[in-house]
């Protein structure tokens, strides 16, 4: 709370000071839209860049940040020209940081952001619109909030549909199980959208495999330690009935494999999700059947690129079709036969992307159920 108050005071002081300076210089009229909103979109020549995200303690967000930095460097700037706004899982901090950044730069900003939870996307977009800044979002937004309702300032939203890829990994798993037996699912945090979609994918595949029984599905909270303990409990409950394991992400799969290792169980078919380097190596070694890569490096770069190019006027978001403003990111299935190629192409050497090909690798418009 104290940081919130501190940030609030800082922010208010900043905007008041900016206003006074601007008035003194006789620039009041020019500064008015920036300070008091109105949502007038003005092209900035050199907008300040920022990425707002959860933390640096995971391979996923590190990869997102590396993409943002790669884009920043492609503009001929040092990579620290991109400011990291780390929200540590707090939506309040996410919003406060973004407002402070907008105020500090008088709205001349290009911000990429995961709003941390769905309801926070709207206030973030409103803040950008009020200050005349440009924001592109990923992952979290409510179904009723759309970039096209915010003029040009909410440039785009990218998400990933996990249901289909999770269904594909389930099919690979079921084939490896010989089309019969019992499967357990270890999921993410129960209320998280990706966790729900990945379990749904498994359930969709089950319809085509009548001899496979879903023994249990419980949340392991994306966590390796929790996954190991949950898998151990499953082994007590179901014992030899478990002939395959469907994991909601790579971290969970690591825990499952250790729980099996402790019991001396070898060769259990397991599938995962996320395509982290360790998991890809496990696919190559045959310890894991499949994982799914969502190319966070590209996602991190292109999200910032969209906000930047909207800010400098390369394209006008409101003139783009809806599928250019709300779209799915790419997903790549990684299995034993293509893991080595995949590793060489995406992990050993990070490909250099064309950061003006905004929609090429994307995966179609977001569909609401």
């Amino acid at each position, binding site marked *: 709370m104290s940081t919130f108050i501190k940030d609030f005071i800082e922010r208010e002081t900043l905007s008041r000071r900016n206003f006074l300076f601007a008035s003194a210089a006789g620039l009041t009229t020019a500064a008015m839209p920036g300070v008091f909103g109105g949502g007038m979109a003005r092209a900035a020549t050199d907008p300040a860049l920022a990425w707002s995200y959860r933390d640096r303690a995971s391979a996923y*967000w590190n990869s997102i940040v590396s993409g943002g930095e790669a884009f920043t460097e492609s503009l001929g700037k040092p990579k620290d020209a991109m400011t990291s706004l780390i929200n540590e899982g707090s939506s309040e901090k996410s919003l406060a940081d973004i407002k402070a950044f907008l105020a500090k730069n008088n709205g001349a900003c290009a911000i990429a952001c995961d709003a941390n939870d769905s309801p926070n996307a709207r206030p973030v977009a409103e803040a950008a619109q009020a200050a005349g800044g440009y924001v592109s979002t990923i992952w979290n937004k409510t179904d009723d909030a759309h970039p096209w309702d915010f003029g040009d300032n909410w440039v785009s939203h990218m998400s990933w549909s996990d249901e289909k890829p999770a269904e594909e990994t389930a099919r690979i798993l079921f084939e490896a199980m010989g089309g019969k037996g019992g499967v357990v699912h270890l999921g993410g945090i129960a209320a998280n959208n990706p966790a729900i979609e990945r379990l749904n994918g498994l359930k969709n595949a089950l319809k085509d495999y009548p001899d496979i029984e879903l023994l249990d599905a419980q949340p392991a909270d994306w966590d390796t*330690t929790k996954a190991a303990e949950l898998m*151990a409990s499953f082994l007590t409950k179901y*014992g030899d009935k478990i002939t395959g394991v469907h994991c909601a992400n790579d971290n969970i799969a690591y825990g499952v494999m250790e729980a099996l290792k402790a019991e001396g169980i070898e060769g259990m078919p397991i599938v995962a999700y996320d395509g982290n380097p360790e998991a890809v190596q496990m696919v190559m070694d045959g310890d894991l059947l499949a994982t799914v890569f969502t190319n966070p490096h590209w996602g991190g770069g292109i999200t910032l690129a969209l906000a930047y190019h909207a800010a400098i006027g390369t394209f006008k978001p409101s003139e783009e079709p809806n599928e250019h403003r709300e779209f799915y990111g790419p997903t790549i299935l990684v299995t034993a036969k293509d893991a080595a190629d995949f590793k060489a192409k995406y992990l050993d050497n990070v490909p250099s992307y064309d950061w003006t090909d905004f929609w090429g690798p994307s995966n179609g418009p977001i569909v609401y159920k």
Partner: protein
Amino acid sequence: MNRYLTRENAIRWAPLMVLIGLVILFTAINPAFFSQRNFARITVAAAPALMVAIGVTFIIVMGSIDLSMEGTVGLTAVLFCFLFLATGGTLAVGGWVAMPLILLLGAAIGFVNGLVHVKLRIPSFMASLAIGFVGTGAAVLVTGGDIVKIDDDTFRALLTWRIAGFPLMVYVVGGFVLLAWFIQSHTTLGRNFYAVGGGEELAHASGLNVRRVRIMGFVLAGMFYAVAGILQVAKLGQAESVSGANFMFISITSVVVGGVALWGGIGGVWNTVVGVLIVNVINNGMVVIGLPDFLQDGVLGLLVIVAVVLSTDRRSISFVK
């Protein structure tokens, strides 16, 4: 009243009764719960948490609190992996050197923690929480958010090599429990923790160097966190900056459930052992009996309250804050 059936004895043995009651309850619902394999699974899950809980027991007995465990476990686990890999990557060659060094590092973190608390006169709650954040931050810094893996089969024998059905790490933890019990019961330092927790002014007036005892307490706790860090790596074969996540909740809950009073001076190592087992038996048992996952957190909370009600002597204190 029977000589053995006093109120005092009932409270002393209540945590163990709760543990036995839970085992009977879960076994009655699903007999698969009561098997040697499952007990081995529960003890493996409990092993690192028990080391953390024993560390914090010394601090709680002094009437203070230590919340630095998540950062300390995360940092020691990560640095253990780096050191282990740097010294040969296998226990047989030179990897064993990493173990004493990491224990020293844990002690050093505890020492800083104690100094900040005692010398700067910052309440232990705040000082240790801050040191914990520093630890997590340092772990993020050295790993850059990545995972560090250890594949050495000799080291992993802690998990894979079994004696009488239980992995080696369970016996290692048993050894450290005995060490902790020895420190608590047979050393001056151990007795001094109780003196400080039972009445700090009195201990001070009796000529005890309370500040020194406090710092030593944190050093000891830090060492036990480092043991937990190493065991966490042994259990999962990897370390990352969040390797210490959840240990704060599970260790302090276990300590209290086992009957160690948060206001200090009451309880000890054995209470903590029973408390950690209670929490892990509940976690394992809820899955084994097939309790729906959306009920599990709620049931854990209720069982914790019941366990605390049964196992602490609340009549001896006038108010709770």
